[in-house]
């Protein structure tokens, strides 16, 4: 079943086309990886889907409904949640309270919200930091908090913007486990990542962007061999290694 549909989505900033006629879908329960060099427009795509930017052309549909012009909070209520590349914790309130905000997307009772939040904190290994102010968390903890907040909203699609950025290999493994765990619940995952090994291992399908254009789409193994992709990341010389 198709959950999210992007149809010819384009975003122009004055003369610059950040995203150019992007068409792709996300299936229920699928993990879709979005990769590409820096500046390829990946985060812009997230901003477009989550409503922080409106596309210049094209449409975005969730479960058949047009969400192109909706506000971010409405899109979240529909079931599409996202994290930010640079974590945005609510600094002056506790970790638990941070996650409760996400939980209130579904439950409006404070007790219920706290219970949901506690459960999510357990899954994301943040229980020990429950009562700490979010501004006092370390970087990997903040990354997990980003995930926890989004998880608490009970989304059908979780969009993660570079969740592994800045993590050590051990932490990357932990995060990967966590994401697989989340996936087991049936939540579809849309993940932007530069840590190629992780995203190749996780994803069912990969979309490659370069200069805002989708240059490849397919299974991780195909993508790894795609010359256009290699060229985009490493430059022409690497496409045909002559040695």
């Amino acid at each position, binding site marked *: 079943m198709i959950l999210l549909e992007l149809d010819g989505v384009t975003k122009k900033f004055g003369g610059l086309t950040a995203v150019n006629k992007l068409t792709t879908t996300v299936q229920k329960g699928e993990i879709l990886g979005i990769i590409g060099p820096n500046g390829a427009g990946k985060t812009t795509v997230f901003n477009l889907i989550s409503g922080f930017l409106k596309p210049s052309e094209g449409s975005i549909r969730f479960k058949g409904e047009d969400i192109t012009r909706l506000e*971010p909070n409405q899109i979240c209520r529909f079931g599409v949640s996202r994290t930010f590349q640079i974590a945005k914790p609510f600094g002056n309130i506790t970790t638990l309270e941070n996650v409760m905000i996400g939980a209130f997307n579904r439950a409006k009772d404070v007790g219920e919200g706290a219970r949901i939040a506690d459960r999510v904190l357990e899954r994301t290994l943040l229980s020990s930091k429950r009562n700490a102010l979010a501004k006092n968390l370390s970087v990997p903890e903040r990354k997990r908090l980003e995930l926890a907040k989004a998880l608490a909203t009970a989304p059908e699609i979780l969009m993660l913007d570079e969740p592994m950025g800045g993590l050590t290999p051990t932490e990357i493994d932990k995060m990967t486990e966590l994401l697989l765990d989340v996936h087991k619940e049936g939540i579809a995952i849309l993940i932007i990542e530069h840590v190629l090994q992780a995203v190749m291992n996780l994803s069912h399908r990969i979309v490659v962007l370069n200069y805002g254009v989708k240059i490849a789409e397919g299974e991780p193994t195909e993508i790894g061999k795609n010359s256009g992709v290699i060229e985009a990341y490493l430059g022409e010389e690497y496409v045909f290694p002559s040695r």
Partner: protein
Amino acid sequence: MRESRSLRPFYCLICAALAVATVPLFVSSDYFLTVFISVLYGVYLCICWNLVFGYTGLFSLCHQAFLGIGAYTSTVLYLNHKLSPWLGMFVGAFLSTALAVGLTFVCYRYRVKGLFFGIVTLAFAFVIQNLVMSWDYVHAAVGISLVQMDAPWDYYFMERSPYYWIILFLVVIALAVTFFIERSYIGYYLKAIREDEDAAEALGVPSSRYKILVMAVSAFLISLGGTFYAQFYMYIHPENVLSFGPMVTMQVGTMAGGAGTLLGPVIGWTFFGFFDEALSWLPIGSLSTATITRITYGVILMTIVIFLPTGMVGLAKRLSVILRIRSRRYSGE
């Protein structure tokens, strides 16, 4: 510290209020009662502003406009149309609420946020003040003096004590509103909006809706305070209900006590309200005193932001943490 879900703090509040309410039974001096009333009035203004600035992080510099609208509406309706200020105050409050909603909505629509929201609200308040100052129907820059009558049904009392109880009641209402908002999901949403509006939106928080709500509630409440001011002090003028002066009161009291906390405004302005009164005992001419007081408040405001941004409540929290660590250290050894 995990917030308790019990209503205990609320019951404490009620008890404290009842205790404070007995003051007029012991104190018969008109002078002291007036001082207490004036302090409570300042506290009330701070609590109202705290909802919008402390909890939600909105830089509203127009709350004095709602105060003035409340004061002028009920007064003009009373003097020209014989409408009791008890009813007039609600007319003023609804007018203020409508304007607050409109202003906040326009700012949402045109994406005016942060400091520029502050400037737009400052401009709004400035326009309102100038409007009143140049409108003869409301006596322009001359101000309006109310006529003295013995008429409780017209919001006038010969004694000071009824005023004391009214303003105390208003303070309790405002604190209760703050308390119940803070402990509900709305309180969490407001803090999220304050900390990071975009992150909040991404989590499903309809930020514009709650900003409008909190501005509306706050404007409504502060407007009632305006009517109280008119009925107690019997003289309203753009200088005392529409100018930047009341806004400084709100800022000093809220910041000094601790913005975004329930008791911050109470503690903050209780301290400075009495300090204010003490200043007036200085042996300088009365006009100079007023000006020096104002200069002092400006300096205090700057000092608080620089050295103690979390206010007295924040300081107390830090001290309690230090004390707790100390006691744990001693008990461990």
